[in-house]
């Protein structure tokens, strides 16, 4: 293994320590990741995690951090813990200086005139942004196959999906193309890709991370969160991006808990951990169930009490989700009309009216899955159907919240598999939207209730040797519990495996011949 290969495999927290100790520079680290991206991301068999690589700006920020460190003094002392640690950003989050496409043709070439709040916070922490990662168009999908710019491949098996919609962020982290990434999670888009790529992903409490600058799919469900290779790394990133933002009215006013401390002092002794009866067993792959049960056993050995809770209304969650999400999406995506920005397509025939320009633009600019959801949502909100569809779905949402309340009265944290199966093959479910939607059955309830969820690697499934994700859920505003329990489970599992799960991922061959500048 070359020196750089060692460097890119370090966790963000380990990199941060090396940077602080002066053992490595941010430019070296950033360049190592840029080289890795150049080596494994492109070409027909590349991972294709990135839609845009931000080489110059990333290196400039890295150089700035290095200069501050070299100069020492107060400025160096004030540097954020993660200063100089590079990061990738899901291309649903707007950035000045780089294109933002949302994985859609309708925004091809569009540059945002403003930064998302989370991006501002990354810049304040002086974290070099490596680039923008691939996603299902407007975050609509569970496989990243709905990206208008082609699918991302799972680094564990290049013929399989990396999950979605944040497959790009998860694959980038799993393929050592970035130590950290930002994702967005509306129904599982951070956690399910985490599960199928053997990485960690967290959907924070709704409102605990600003949504300002995340292109909305479903406003009441969307949440930005961290993607990483370790639980501690997610806590570190969550601490950077979280906290109140006056630009987001739904952002919580309370200060963040000390999530990093929770991750560092993981302890489950005496904690009650609840298995959700409805979120395992039938419909879950055997290998997924096996790894899930092993995790329960480890937590029990570490002093946790395992209890079973029932959330009977979770069975309605998927149905209600597929009414609320498309309803909000149909309205949120109305702004993409070719009038002010992005793609504009003129109709082939006269007359050239604004309605026809909007229609032609949207017909050409949106992919099938996006159109499917806009049509579904438009229908669900229509007069005469609203009460039966959107109204009923909101009631189900209340019932799901009550199920969570009852469950959290019995347990401090809930646990389930993150996804019912391991990564499926590219193309396998592309023509079966319902099968695709079922992938999110275990992750959707958290979005419907606004509670936080974390997915961490639980091992490899016996049948296919692919990663399995374990999901932890906590009450709203108790994100610290996820890190506390997650860190314990991670260390117990890694002790069993003899190291991180990603060490067992197949070595990626360079898809693009290395160029002269490589180290």
């Amino acid at each position: 293994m070359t020196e750089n290969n060692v460097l890119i495999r370090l966790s963000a927290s380990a990199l941060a320590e090396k940077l602080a100790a002066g053992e490595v520079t941010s430019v070296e680290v950033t360049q190592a990741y840029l080289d890795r991206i150049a080596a494994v991301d492109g070409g027909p068999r590349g991972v294709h995690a990135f839609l845009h690589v931000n080489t110059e700006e990333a290196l400039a920020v890295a150089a700035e951090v290095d200069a501050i460190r070299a100069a020492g003094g107060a400025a160096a002392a004030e540097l954020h813990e993660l200063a100089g640690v590079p990061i990738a950003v899901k291309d649903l989050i707007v950035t000045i200086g780089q294109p933002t496409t949302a994985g859609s043709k309708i925004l091809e070439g569009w540059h945002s005139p403003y930064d998302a709040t989370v991006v501002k916070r990354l810049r304040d922490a002086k974290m070099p942004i490596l680039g923008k990662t691939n996603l299902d168009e407007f975050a609509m999908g569970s496989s990243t196959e709905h990206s208008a710019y082609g699918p991302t491949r799972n680094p564990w098996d290049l013929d399989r999906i990396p999950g979605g919609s944040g497959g790009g962020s998860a694959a980038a982290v799993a393929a050592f193309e970035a130590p950290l990434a930002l994702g967005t999670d509306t129904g599982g888009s951070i956690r399910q890709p985490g599960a199928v790529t053997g990485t960690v992903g967290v959907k924070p409490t709704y409102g605990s991370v600003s949504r300002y600058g995340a292109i909305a799919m479903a406003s009441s469900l969307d949440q930005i969160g961290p993607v990483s290779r370790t639980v501690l790394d997610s806590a570190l990133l969550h601490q950077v991006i979280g906290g109140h933002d006056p630009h987001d009215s739904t952002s919580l006013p309370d200060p963040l808990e000390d999530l990093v401390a929770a991750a560092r002092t993981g302890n489950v002794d005496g904690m009650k951990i609840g298995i959700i009866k409805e979120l395992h067993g039938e419909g879950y792959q055997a290998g997924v169930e096996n790894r899930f049960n092993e995790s329960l056993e480890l937590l029990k050995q570490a002093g946790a009490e395992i209890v079973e809770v029932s959330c009977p209304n979770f069975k309605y969650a998927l149905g209600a989700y597929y009414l609320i999400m498309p309803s909000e999406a149909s309205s949120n995506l109305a702004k993409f009309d070719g009038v002010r920005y992005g793609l504009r397509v003129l109709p082939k025939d006269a007359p050239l009216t604004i309605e026809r320009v909007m229609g032609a633009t949207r017909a050409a600019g949106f992919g099938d899955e996006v159109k499917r959801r806009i049509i579904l949502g438009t229908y669900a909100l229509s007069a005469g159907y609203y009460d039966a569809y959107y109204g009923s779905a909101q009631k189900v949402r209340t019932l799901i919240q009550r199920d969570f309340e009852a469950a959290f009265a019995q347990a401090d944290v809930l646990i389930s598999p993150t996804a019912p199966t391991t990564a499926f093959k590219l193309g396998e479910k592309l023509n079966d939207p319902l099968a695709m939607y079922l992938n999110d059955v275990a992750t959707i309830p958290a979005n419907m209730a606004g509670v936080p969820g974390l997915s961490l690697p639980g091992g490899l499934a016996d049948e296919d040797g692919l990663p399995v994700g374990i999901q932890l859920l906590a009450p709203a505003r108790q994100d610290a519990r996820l890190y506390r329990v997650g860190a314990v489970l991670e260390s117990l599992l890694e002790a069993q495996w003899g190291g991180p799960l990603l060490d067992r991922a197949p070595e990626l061959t360079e898809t693009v011949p290395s160029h002269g500048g490589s180290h």
Partner: protein
Amino acid sequence: MTDATLSFEEAMEKYDPVLGFEVHVELNTKTKMFSSAPNVFGDEPNTNVNEVDLGMPGVLPVVNKTAIESSIKIGLALNCKIAETCRFARKNYFYPDTPKNFQTSQYDEPIAYDGYLDIELSDGTVFRVEIERAHMEEDAGKLTHMGGAAGRIQGADYSLVDYNRSGVPLVEIVTKPIQGAGSRAPELAKAYVAAVREIVKNLGVSDAKMERGNVRCDANVSLRPHGRERFGIRSETKNVNSLRAVEHAVRYEIQRHAAVLDSGEPVIQETRHWHEDTRSTTSGRAKSDADDYRYFPEPDLVPIVASREWVEELRATLPEPPAERRKRLQADWGYSDLEFRDVVNAGVMDEIEETIAAGATANVARKWWMGEIVGRAKNADVDPGQLGVKPGTIVELNTMVEAGKINNKMAAEVLDGVLAGEGTPAEIVEKRGLAVVSDDGPLLEAIDAALAAQPGVADKIRGGKVQAIGAIVGGVMKATRGQADAGRVRELILEKLGVEG
């Protein structure tokens, strides 16, 4: 195509009008309803906008707290209940003046509801208009249609959009159906909109300039045969933007509906456009209750909670209500009931108050507004306040008259000059060479001539019939082409004849 109409009197004989108003009030907050961009009228197009107003990807709205306060104040002034919690909703429709292709508005949870407003008509009758609701929303951008005829969208080559107005806070005040106004309906319509305008201006929450669209009125009119309970089918005349137009539009629609009903045809439920030039309406688009805006609660905003403490704090800051203000002003100014009602009906109360504030006495201010300006406004077919007379102009003119520099006739001429844009009163007096002849020499000569021409009159005056002096004064004024100070002429005549005035 012009629609058939019945005479207003005939329409009233046969039918009973039912009215309804939606008045949109633009709030004068510093920033917009949901963004920090400035809320300023008349700037370069698309300069008072940020990413939120342009509906850029990823943006989120934040509610303007001052706009909420203003809305609550309006609700309180309209005697409404204020909702303890209320929400915004999205009204979804595709139109290029709406950057998100939905308008953030309130739907089933208005901030204020169930109020009323007592409207005093010209003869002093008080008519109660019930308020259904006052809700908050954002204004749309402004479209300008280029090419084609007269800025209409039909036949235009292209349209320009100015998003400066996009996101300006609006409060929409909706009445319950107004019944029983009968032939007073047009008058009531004007008086109601005037009252709302007066209230929001008095509260200081809006600039309340109708000519700038700060207060815009949609007027609903329907007719039913006398004695019938059920309402007829209504038309909604959009954007009637002056008080006179409100009155005219309601009157016109009553006459048009009556003709339609008389012909046996059903009235079409539609929006109508008001045309000031022809004082008539034309058909807009058909509007049915089935227009589907797919309203749903705005998920990007949390509910607005108006605690009772806050509402009471705001109530305590409310200024004197206009009706009470009128009582006070009448007493302060010493006008008779008739004089004051004429002032109110002429719509010049605020102007008189401003003129007095600028230094005129109450009687001088009334003399100018009622005697000179109202008539001119009527001739120009505009509201008196829109004629452009500044209080300072009146004070300046009056000062010149009192100083004897010019007389009233000249002052009226100078006012015309000011309105024609010829300059300040002093400049116009100078330019036109207007000046009362104040040197007694030429006056005495003219007096001698006049007395000599009418010796009989001189004798009468000497004999004690002082009122006969008018004929001599008239002769002098004629001889001096009106440039003499009539008062001074009178003094000199009496002096000359040795008679005590």
